[in-house]
């Protein structure tokens, strides 16, 4: 029992110490960071956070990120739900090939798509819009969402569909009122993964934006100013990017174990 705890404590400490360090730095002034080494801030200050919240260039980064992540999650789920239903319930021409082709897109290195995406979205006038990033992230999120949802839906007996049909539900009413509540944990998990991969991605998001839809992750490269790197502000910005993720995890904490098995255990 003791050695069980020890392993876990070590591992979690290993995970938390770098995060603590970032948090520690975010409460220091740049001068304090550069002037010496201390395990905790001697004069804790919120100046770095104030800098971020008083500068639209900074905080709009968060707004932009949130908008395209939200859009992406909604689009991904909206198209993946009916498709996953089709894959879990019916056979149709080319179904297997289509499924594997979809999944193969999850294997595409984002770096491969950077330039073509840039050209594609520029040519249709969507460059530097939230929707462009949201659509581009669908490349890897839609296959994932379809796959996760298909796993959860296959666990629901087909008899439920048939009973609803006999009871006179139209397909739409059945899907919205009976089927979706049954797989709500699956929808939650899919949404979680869409959020996760869209929120953490930078390469594509940075390439497809310049000013109006610039993600927070890209704004962070701005901290190089005339006086050198402002480490304090950089650390504070970093801490702020962790918070949305932490909130999302907190909400799904009781489903983490099951959710990460993607409905396939």
């Amino acid at each position, binding site marked *: 029992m003791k050695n*069980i705890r020890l*392993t876990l404590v070590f*591992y*979690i400490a290993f*995970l938390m110490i*770098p*995060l603590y*360090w*970032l948090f520690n*730095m975010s409460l220091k002034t740049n001068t304090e960071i550069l002037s010496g*080494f201390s395990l905790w801030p001697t004069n804790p200050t919120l100046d770095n956070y104030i800098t971020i919240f008083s500068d639209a260039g900074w905080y709009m980064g968060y707004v932009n990120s949130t908008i395209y992540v939200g859009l992406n999650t909604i*689009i991904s789920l909206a*198209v993946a739900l*009916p*498709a996953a239903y*089709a894959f879990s*319930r*019916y*056979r*149709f021409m080319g179904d297997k090939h*289509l499924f594997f082709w*979809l999944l*193969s*897109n999850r*294997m*595409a*290195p*984002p*770096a*491969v*798509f*950077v*330039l*073509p*995406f840039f050209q*594609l979205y520029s040519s249709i006038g969507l460059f530097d819009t939230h929707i462009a990033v949201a659509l*581009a992230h*669908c490349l890897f999120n*839609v296959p994932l969402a379809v796959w996760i949802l298909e796993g959860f839906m*296959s666990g629901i007996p087909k008899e439920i569909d048939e009973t609803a049909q006999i009871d006179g539900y139209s397909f739409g009413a059945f899907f919205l009122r009976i089927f979706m509540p049954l797989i709500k944990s699956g929808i939650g998990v899919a949404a979680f993964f869409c959020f996760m991969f869209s*929120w*953490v991605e*930078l*390469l594509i998001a940075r390439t497809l934006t310049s000013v109006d839809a610039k993600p927070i*992750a890209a704004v*962070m490269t701005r901290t190089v100013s005339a006086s050198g790197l402002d*480490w304090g502000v950089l*650390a504070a910005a*970093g801490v702020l990017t962790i918070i949305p*993720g932490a909130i999302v*995890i*907190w909400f799904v*904490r*009781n489903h*983490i*174990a099951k959710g*990460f*098995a993607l409905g*396939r*255990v």
Partner: protein
Amino acid sequence: MQKKLNQKAWFLVLPVFLLVAFSAIIPLMTVVNYSVQDSFGNNEFFWVGAEWFSEILNSERFHSALGRQLLFSAIILLIEIPLGIFIALKIPKQGWAVSLCLVLMALPLLIPWNVVGTIWQIFAREDIGLLGYVLAALDVDYNYTQNSTDAWITIIIMDVWHWTSLVVLLCYAGLSSIPDAYYQAAKIDGASRWATFRYIQLPKLKRVLLIAVLLRFMDSFMIYTEPFVVTGGGPGNATTFLSIDLVKMAIGQFDLGPAAAFSLIYFLIVLLLSWVFYTIMTANEGKTNQS
């Protein structure tokens, strides 16, 4: 489950098909298009056939980036998969601490990748980072911006920090689905701790491990942002992995033709290796009961 034949199901799949076709096929066509042409900059293109492909496949630069990439992915898998299983085995089945453990473990997974890079870039710096500072105080000769071994170690530790939890969570999910009776039977049969792991836990983990290995392989093979932020691919080219090299070529040097050929080769390698992993890991399974 017996599925019904129903061609109308295509209507349900159509939105996904169109969306993914739009964001996958059109860009891919562009890439294919570039990969067989050359341009002198004024929008004039001419056919060069497979020239870029043979150039890339024969180039020292591509070989070394591919070599580094394979080595990196291999190390990552060899560390993260066993470590992930080991830690998952140590998580108790229930108790108030379990939720907290899982939440803390999941945290690194939701940090934007460049922030992960930034965290480690800071953490490993000798002047302002805890790790760098401690190592310097212990008189360890460590400098990830100068020494390529140090750079590798830093990036590998960063990736272990970032992604091992994914393996842990997947394995934990797999382990929680094993009924108690299995452990009781193993006790009655006098199985050792190792035999219990080998014959009960590992077989039941197979499915999640397949997912874990595939995800970890794909994502480590496509890694870009984190090492780019920490080392920028350096020192020299020591940590220039395939994606970093590709972006350098495509956006830095604007060598569209070679970059496109590079892209396609890269994509094919990922697909091929993923397929190999999938085949090996499902080889002994006989009939699988799921698509």
